[in-house]
C-alpha cells in the first residue's frame, strides 16, 4: 500500500493521466463543436484513426513532424466534409454517416498501411526528429523548490510534448469561441433552433459546415498526438475506442467545454489508475478487476444519460436534418 500512495506515485499517476487524457480532450472539444451545431458526431474515432495513420505515414516519409501534423489535419477535415456532405447537403442520417466513416477508417488504414509499408499495418518507427518530443517548460527549475506546487509543476505539468499543451489550450479557446464570440452564439443557436437562425438571414448549412470542419481540425491534432507524439509510429486500430470515450466524456460534460475537460481527465485518470492497479490488492476490497475500471467510463455515462446524476440535455435540433422549404 505504501508504494501506492507515496508522493512520487501520485505525481506520476497524475502525469500519466494528462498524457492519456490529451486525445480525449481534443476529441471531446471536436465533438462539442459538431454537436452544438446540431450534427451528431460518432465519427470522432474514425477521424482520429485516419489522422493518426496520415501523420504516421507522412512523418515516416518526409521526416517532418509539422508536415505530418498538417497532413493529418487535412485528412481529418476531408472526412469531416464527407460527413457534412452526407448529413448537411444530402440530409442523410448522421449516425449512419458517422458509422460509415468509422468503419471505412478502420479498414482503409490497415489496407493502405500494409500496401504502402508492408509492416503488418504499422508505419515505420520514427526517429525523434520526426516526432513531437517532450520538453521542459521554461522557468520550471526556478519554482522547483516551492513545496507541493514545485514538484507538481515539475513532474505533472512540465515535460510533455507540444500537443498536450495544445489540448489544454483548446479548452479555454473552445469556451471563448462558443460563449463569447458572434460565431459561437450562432453556433449554439443553430443547434437549438435552426429555423430561427435561417430566418435571421444566416446560412444554416454554412454554420454547420464550419463547425464540423473545426471538429476535423481537432480530431486531426488528436490523431497526430497518438501516432507521432505519444508513440513513435502508427499501429493498426491504435485509437482503440478512445473516440467513443471522448464522445462519452463530452456527453458527461453535458456538451460544455470545462465539464467535458473534467470528464476527460476523470476518464484518463481511471485509465492511468487501471494500469497501476493491475494485480494489486486493495485493503478491504481485494483486487479490483482491471476490466471493471476500463468499463467504468461507459457505465458512468449510461448512468448519467439515464438521469440518475443530473440531467444531460442534448442540443434540441441535434440529429435532425434542416430542410429550408417546409
Amino acid at each position, binding site marked *: 500500500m505504501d508504494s501506492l500512495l507515496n508522493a512520487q506515485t501520485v505525481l506520476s499517476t497524475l502525469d500519466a493521466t494528462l498524457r492519456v487524457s490529451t486525445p480525449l480532450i481534443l476529441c471531446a472539444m471536436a465533438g462539442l463543436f459538431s454537436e452544438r451545431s446540431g450534427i*451528431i458526431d*460518432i465519427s470522432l474515432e474514425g477521424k482520429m484513426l485516419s489522422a493518426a495513420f496520415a501523420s504516421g505515414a507522412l512523418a515516416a516519409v518526409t521526416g517532418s513532424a509539422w508536415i505530418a501534423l498538417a497532413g493529418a489535419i487535412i485528412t481529418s477535415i476531408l472526412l469531416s466534409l*464527407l460527413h457534412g*456532405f*452526407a*448529413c448537411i447537403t*444530402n*440530409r*442523410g*442520417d448522421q*449516425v*449512419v*454517416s458517422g*458509422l*460509415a*466513416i*468509422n*468503419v*471505412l*477508417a*478502420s*479498414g*482503409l488504414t*490497415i*489496407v*493502405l498501411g*500494409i*500496401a504502402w509499408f508492408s509492416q503488418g*499495418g504499422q508505419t515505420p518507427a520514427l526517429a525523434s526528429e520526426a516526432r513531437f518530443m517532450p520538453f521542459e517548460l521554461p522557468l520550471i527549475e526556478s519554482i522547483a523548490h516551492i513545496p507541493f506546487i514545485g514538484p507538481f509543476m515539475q513532474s505533472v505539468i512540465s515535460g510533455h510534448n507540444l500537443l498536450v499543451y495544445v489540448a489544454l489550450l483548446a479548452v479555454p479557446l473552445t469556451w471563448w469561441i462558443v460563449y463569447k464570440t458572434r460565431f459561437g452564439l450562432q453556433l449554439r443557436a443553430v443547434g437549438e433552433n435552426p429555423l430561427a437562425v435561417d430566418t435571421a438571414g444566416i446560412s444554416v448549412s454554412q454554420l454547420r459546415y464550419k463547425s464540423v470542419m473545426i471538429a476535423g481540425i481537432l480530431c486531426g491534432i488528436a490523431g497526430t498526438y497518438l501516432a507521432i507524439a505519444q508513440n513513435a509510429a502508427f499501429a493498426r486500430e491504435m485509437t482503440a*475506442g478512445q473516440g*467513443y470515450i471522448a*464522445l*462519452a466524456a463530452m*456527453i458527461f460534460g453535458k456538451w460544455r467545454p470545462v465539464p467535458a475537460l473534467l470528464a476527460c481527465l476523470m476518464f484518463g485518470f481511471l485509465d492511468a489508475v487501471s494500469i497501476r492497479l493491475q494485480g494489486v490488492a486493495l485493503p478491504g476490497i481485494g483486487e479490483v*478487476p482491471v*476490466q*471493471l475500471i*476500463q*468499463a467504468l467510463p*461507459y*457505465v458512468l*455515462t*449510461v448512468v448519467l*444519460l*439515464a*438521469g440518475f446524476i443530473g440531467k444531460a440535455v*442534448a442540443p434540441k435540433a441535434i440529429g435532425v436534418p434542416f*430542410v429550408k*422549404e417546409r
Partner: protein
Amino acid sequence: MSTSNIELPAWIEILLIPILNICMALFFAGLIIFAIGENPIDAVRIMLTGAFGYDEGVGYTLYYTTNFIFTGLAVAIAFHARLFNIGGEGQAYFAGLGIGLTFLLLDGMLPAILLIPIGILAAALFGALWALIPAWLQAYRGSHIVITTIMFNFIASSLMVYLLVNVLIKPGSMSPETREFSEQSWLPFMHDVLSNFGIEVTRTPLNMSFVLALVCCLVVWIYIWKTRWGYALRTAGQSEAAAVYAGIKPKRIIIITMCISGALAGLVAVNEIMGVHHRLILNFTAGYGFTGIAVALMGRNHPLGIIMASLLFGVLYQGGAELAFEMPKITREMVVAIQGLIILFSGALALMLRPAIVKIWLAIRPIPSTPDMGGQHG
C-alpha cells in the same frame, strides 16, 4: 426546388436507386484496389471463384451469410420502429454468455433434443436482456439509444474478458476460453446432415443455424407485415403521435422491438458457439454486429433484401479471404473498407442521387397525363 416530395415509380425507388448506390460503393472499392496497384477486375474474379467456385467456398460463404442474416434482421426490425440498434455486437457477445452458462451447467445431463432448444433460447434471452436495458432507458428515461447501445458494446466486451479470464476459464488452461461443451449440444454440421442423404461435401463451418436464419427471415416478415404487433410497430415508427392516437403505447413498442432485435442478434452466438466453436471464446462476434447495419441498409430493412445483402457480404468475407491469399498486397481488412463504403452510399448518401433521378424521370416519363401532385412549388 425540392424534389423530396415527388413520387417515383416503385421500381426506381426499390430497385434502381439501391442498385446504383451499391454500384457506387463497389466502384470506389475498385478505385482503392486500383490505387494499391492491383487489378480490380481480377480481384472480383478471384473473389467470386473463392466464394462459389468449389463446395468448400460455398460452405464458408453461407456460414458467414448466416451471421449477417441474424444481425441484419436485428438492425432492420429496430429500424422499422425508428430505433437505431448499434448494439448488435454486444448483444451477440452477451448471448454467448447465455449459451456458455447454460451448457456449463447442463450439457452432461440432457439429451440433444432438449439441450439444443435450450441453448437457442438462452442465446435469444441473453441477447434480448442486453438490449432491454438501453430500451428501457430510451423509453422511460429518454436516453439516446444510439449512445447507450454503443456504451453497452464496450461494457459487454469488458465483462466477457473479465468472466473468461477469471471465472469461466477451463481450469489449468492458459487461453481464456471455457472447456469444450459435450457433443449433445452441438448443432449438426451441414456436411454431416447432407451425408445422411448420401450427398458428400467438404467439411465447412456451415451448420443447421443457416436454416434457423432462413426461418427467422420468414418469422420477421410475418411479424412486421402480417400481425397487429407489426402494424403497431410500424405505426409507432412512422409517427409517434398517430400511434398514441390509435391506442398504441410507444414505450411498450420500444421495449418489445428492442428485445426482439437483441434476441435476433443473439442468435449469432448459436451459429458461432453451438455450431462452430463448441466453447465460449473471446471476440467470437468479430464485428458481425456492425456488418448487420450495412446489411440492413443495403437490404432496405426487408427480409428478402437482407438475405441478398447477407449473401453479398458472405461473398465478400469468404472471397476476401481468398483475395488476401492470392493478392498479397490486399488484406482481409479490404472487406471492412468495402463495408464502410456500402454503409456510406446505401445509408448516409442514400438520397444523393435522387434529385438527379427525379429530374431525369420528369423529363422522360412515359405518360405526363395525371395532374401534377403539388411537387412543383418553390
